[in-house]
């Protein structure tokens, strides 16, 4: 059993006008195997939550806690969090010029496991994961995210999710910019990771369409840096019909 607890999380960012509070007391508990959808309008703090869990230096936690199996995540560096079992699939993955995907994946796997993977099984595992995501094998020779299309970037993020086998994954608008076919492929990858590793998922999205492919157990509606409403999958259906207007007006 694994559990990720977020308690009364307050997060600020530095702006030209001084510190601005984005998250204003967020409480969430995710257990392994569960999928939680975080939905909300633009600017509600969804991505801030994702980056705060991963430990991006731009986001300052001013109050509250994040605990992974009781361990204080906020005291960990970015890489320690990843090694502890947290994964962030980024909305805008950055290019790493001159570093091939195969070099990057092997380096990350070695860092996460604490030892280099045995070469042959590793190559096989990478190849199979890529086939599952309908990625061409020549992809590993390319430089990380360099010249990737939007869809390729997202597949590459999910490829890492499947290979690095975290306990919890935060998917930050993984559905954005994907056509229906790519959305299906990427969703299948997430579902495989869930089935294989009993992964807990925090699925951040603006739209409901990805929820047709990745079934959430819980839906949380984010408004102005707080959870405004929580429920089961039926809440997503209601949002599909009504949008976020009633929260924003309230």
């Amino acid at each position, binding site marked *: 059993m694994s559990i990720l607890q977020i308690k009364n999380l307050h997060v600020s960012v530095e702006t030209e006008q001084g510190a601005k509070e984005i998250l204003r007391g967020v409480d969430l508990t995710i257990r392994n195997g569960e999928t939680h959808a975080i939905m909300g309008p633009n600017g509600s703090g969804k991505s801030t939550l994702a980056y705060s869990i*991963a430990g991006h230096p731009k986001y300052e936690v001013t109050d509250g806690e994040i605990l992974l199996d009781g361990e204080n995540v906020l005291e960990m560096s970015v*890489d320690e969090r990843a090694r502890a079992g947290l994964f962030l699939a980024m909305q805008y993955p*950055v290019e*790493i*010029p001159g*570093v091939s995907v195969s070099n990057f994946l092997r*380096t*990350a796997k070695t860092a996460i496991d604490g030892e280099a993977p045995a070469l042959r099984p590793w190559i096989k595992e990478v190849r199979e994961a890529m086939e599952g995501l309908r990625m061409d094998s020549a992809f590993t020779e390319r430089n*990380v995210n360099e010249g990737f299309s939007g869809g390729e970037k997202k597949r590459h993020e999910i490829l*890492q999710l499947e290979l690095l086998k975290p306990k919890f994954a935060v998917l930050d608008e993984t559905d954005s910019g994907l056509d229906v076919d790519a959305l299906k492929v990427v969703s299948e990858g997430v579902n495989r990771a869930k089935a294989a590793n009993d992964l807990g998922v925090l699925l951040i999205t603006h739209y409901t369409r990805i929820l047709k492919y990745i079934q959430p157990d819980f839906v949380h509606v984010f408004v102005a840096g707080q959870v405004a409403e929580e429920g089961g999958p039926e809440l997503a259906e209601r949002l599909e019909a009504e949008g976020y207007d009633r929260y924003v007006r309230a």
Partner: protein
Amino acid sequence: MTELTQTAQHGLSAHSHGAGVPLQIRNARVRSSKSSDFEAISQREEQWRYLPGDRISDFLVDAFDEFAGDLALKAPDDVKTAWIGPDHDLFGKAGLPEDKISAVAWESAQAAYLINIPSDSKPDCQVQLSLVSEDRSASALHLVINAEHHSTGVVVIDHRGDAQLAENVEILVGDEAQLTVITIQDWTENSVHLSSHFAKLGRNSKLKHIVVSLGGKTVRLTPSVEFTQPGGDVELLGMYFADAGQHLEHRPFVDHAVANCKSRVTYKGALQGEKAHTIWVGDVLIRKAAEGTDTYELNRNLLLTDGARADSVPNLEIETGQIAGAGHASASGRFDDEQLFYLQARGISESQARRLVVFGFLNEIVQQISVPEIEARLTESIEAELARSVD
């Protein structure tokens, strides 16, 4: 890479053309094989302005020893080599010295080592010349690489050991020939290496020239390229890593003297430590006759610590408006925090993430070599350099 300092790009900010030192178009310099034709070396001269005299004090003499280190050659049978004298047709055909030390070296080396790639060379023709020295006296070496018309070949000059070497390298690329020349400076930390490369390109020929400077206290390389016929294509690539106290200077020059030639100059460097100093001065001249020229030059530097300094000076002289394209850019900056975050978010430690980012930054040049064996050799050297110095 975040671009913080010394951005020089037309329309963005002024270039640092250097106050106090007279501007000089590179083709206006004296060119001669006679050292007496040159003025005494002075930092008041543009071409010596960055190089403190005490770094090259052993070279401020009238003659050098001949290079006494090992020259080991690995080449296919059809590649012929010979020591040739000044009376040989190919001696001095690619160019003449444009500075005093190069001229003294020219006079001091009695013969030049010729590597000849024949017209009917195999497509995978690969020549490896390893220079290993243990000798610290100022010495001179003269090489001539001749790629006959329609030939294809790769020549690697691998410099290792301890040396104070003044070197002239002539590169002749015949009509329709395709030549890659890679020069690797992997010296010990006390070495001084001053190297002048002269390339002359024939009709529809292609030269890929790659400079890799890693080791040596002082390394100064001045590759110059001259097009003699239309259709020439040159790619000048460079990669350097300067540690504390290292002075690495690169001055590529492309002379577009005829129409419809193409040049691309890309040099990338990383610096770290007190008084790590790199200099890149990239000159491109498009003469009046050089209509249809297509050129772009780029220098990027990654400053890993305080106390390191990267000078970057692109110069573009254009004497005709009838060109296909001409541009240059130069930028020096520090680590991109977003790249480090991305790698760390995958469990990679901060120090390893830094090494990986620097590795990739330099490896972009290696990836353009497209000779797997040499890529592997260089990848290993970069990784060793980074493991030793970046944390």
